[in-house]
């Protein structure tokens, strides 16, 4: 039971982590990217359509990612070139993506609402040598599909790029002090575009995982606002990769728990489904209290802007 819970928590958190890594890069570059869901849904759709057409998972994932990157490019274009506010452009892109995928689902795949097919290949579960033989841990860590491992590997990679590389330094400076970056001769717009496109890449992986890895089908709006949850995790952790992943994992664990509780408690499903959200708010409050202690006593008055 516990191993199963942990196994499932890892799986549930996977799309959140992918999306959060994407959103985190734009956050670090000073952009509030609310369109994660939009990128994801497009990728989910493209991935399944391409997998159906070609039978190749590799091409499908690549295609899904490419389409998500196109959406990201659209957002970047409108935000940076046409100077639309990122928030409204993000909202618009998201709903555009929902509508577009629904239209295309009918237009291309001839289905209304849901598409699935038996010809679409599956990602096989991967048994990790050695680890799989460790008693409990083995059952938790081994046996996931490829993209799950990719997601968790992305976290150190993102952290490494942000904190160790030239590019990461520039991204962070652009986010913290755009004028400093500008004066240092950094092409701020280019950095912003890059993070936005990368955001598309990660959300593309999230979407492809949703439609090809998690399940093997596409449904309208199937991201079910996972992008917003990822966004909350990013803000919660102030854009730091490891804490962000941790918050996503916390949410995933709470969800896994709420899925398993009905049989044990007989409580109303609505109340059980509250758990992940309530847990997140409580965690937020605990962290907030810890930060606020001391500061309020002597500190200067603070009212941070986002």
């Amino acid at each position: 039971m516990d191993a199963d819970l942990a196994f499932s928590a890892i799986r549930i958190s996977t799309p959140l982590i992918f999306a959060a890594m994407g959103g985190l890069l734009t956050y670090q570059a000073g952009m509030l990217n609310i369109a994660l869901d939009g990128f994801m849904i497009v990728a989910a759709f493209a991935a399944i359509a391409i997998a159906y057409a070609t039978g190749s998972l590799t091409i499908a994932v690549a295609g899904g990612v490419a389409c998500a990157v196109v959406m990201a490019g659209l957002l970047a274009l409108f935000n940076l070139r046409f100077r639309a506010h990122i928030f409204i452009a993000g909202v618009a892109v998201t709903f555009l993506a929902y509508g577009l995928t629904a239209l295309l689902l009918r237009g291309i795949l001839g289905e209304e609402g849901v598409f699935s097919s038996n010809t679409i290949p599956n990602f096989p579960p991967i048994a990790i040598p050695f680890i799989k033989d460790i008693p409990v841990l083995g059952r938790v860590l081994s046996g996931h599909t490829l993209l799950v491992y990719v997601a968790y590997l992305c976290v150190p990679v993102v952290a490494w790029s942000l904190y160790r590389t030239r590019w990461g330094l520039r991204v962070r400076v652009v986010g913290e002090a755009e004028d400093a970056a500008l004066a240092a001769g950094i092409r701020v717009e280019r950095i912003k575009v890059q993070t936005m496109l990368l955001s598309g890449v990660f959300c593309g992986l999230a979407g492809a995982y949703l439609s090809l890895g998690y399940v093997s089908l596409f449904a309208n709006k199937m991201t079910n606002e996972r992008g917003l949850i990822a966004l909350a995790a990013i803000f919660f952790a102030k854009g730091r990769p490891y804490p962000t992943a941790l918050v996503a994992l916390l949410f995933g664990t709470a969800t896994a728990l709420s899925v398993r509780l009905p049989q044990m408690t007989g409580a109303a499903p609505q109340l059980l489904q509250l758990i992940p959200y309530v847990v997140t708010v409580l965690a937020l409050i605990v962290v907030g209290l810890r930060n606020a202690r001391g500061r309020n006593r002597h500190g200067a008055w603070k009212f941070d802007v986002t």
Partner: protein
Amino acid sequence: KLRVAMITSESGLGDRSFNDMMVEGMKRAEKDFDAEYVVVQPRAVSEFQSAIARAAAQGFDIIVGSSFDMIKPMQEVAKAFPDQKFGLVDVGPDPLGPNIVSTVTKDWEGSFLVGWIAAKTTKTGKIGFVGGKDIPIIHRFFVGYYYGAKMANPATEVFESYSGTFTDPAAGKEYTLALINQGSDINFAVAGATSAGVIDAAKETKTFAIGVDSNQNYMAPGNVLTSMVKRVDNQAYDMVKSVSDGTFKGGEVKYYGLAEDGVAAAMDDNNKGLIADAVLADVDTLKAKILSGEIVVPNYFDLTPGQKEMGTPPMATPPSVANAK
């Protein structure tokens, strides 16, 4: 040409449930009766009345809707347009008005059947149910399923869960895997697009899912035990037909149960051999008993709290029944 307007419920097309099924019926009717149809998808219950009224003003030959929440709006509009014909699919037994026909689908009978099959087929003695939202219509499926299983084998454990969404296959899969982890090896999915995730989970774990509404056996041949088909398409088709051949009779309430082929456990090549022949044979006798009235399958809406309609020995009341009304 016959012009038909179909108003979907707020969940709209793509629900893999009555909205999609009705469209299937419309498609057939279009061919058979030289009709043409349009689909209007309101986004919210509050938009039903305006959609129906504006359709009435456009002078369609018949306006067909679904969903309990459309009863009042349709009655309002029907009063204002006494010459307009209306049809409402899958609602209650009460006549709705002089120019409205309505239908009742006895999906509880079908659910009873698949529950019975599931209990006879399970190897673990545990079966599950994954509903979409925690709403009465879905409970109606559960109650039928529950009693079917208990009738087949009172020792069967029946897990009940609701994913809270009709549009998230990943959540459906998660809920199903949780049930499977508790030993359930057959799970009945009544959750719109979320059902797809239930079937996906069955495929992955080599257990069984039971589809709903349309015949979903094809979605994972070998892992969908059967589907509890609910022929809403026939109901819509028949409504158009009645207008076409002049048999439309306002105020009529038609039943679509086992007797009328309104519901059934779907059997086709995709699930051939999954159900033991002996069980299949029993299904036929069971059906006959239901048709003859020897067995009365309880309709969730008729239950009162704590009511034990049938079966011996007395069985526990499922929570959703206990909470009813």
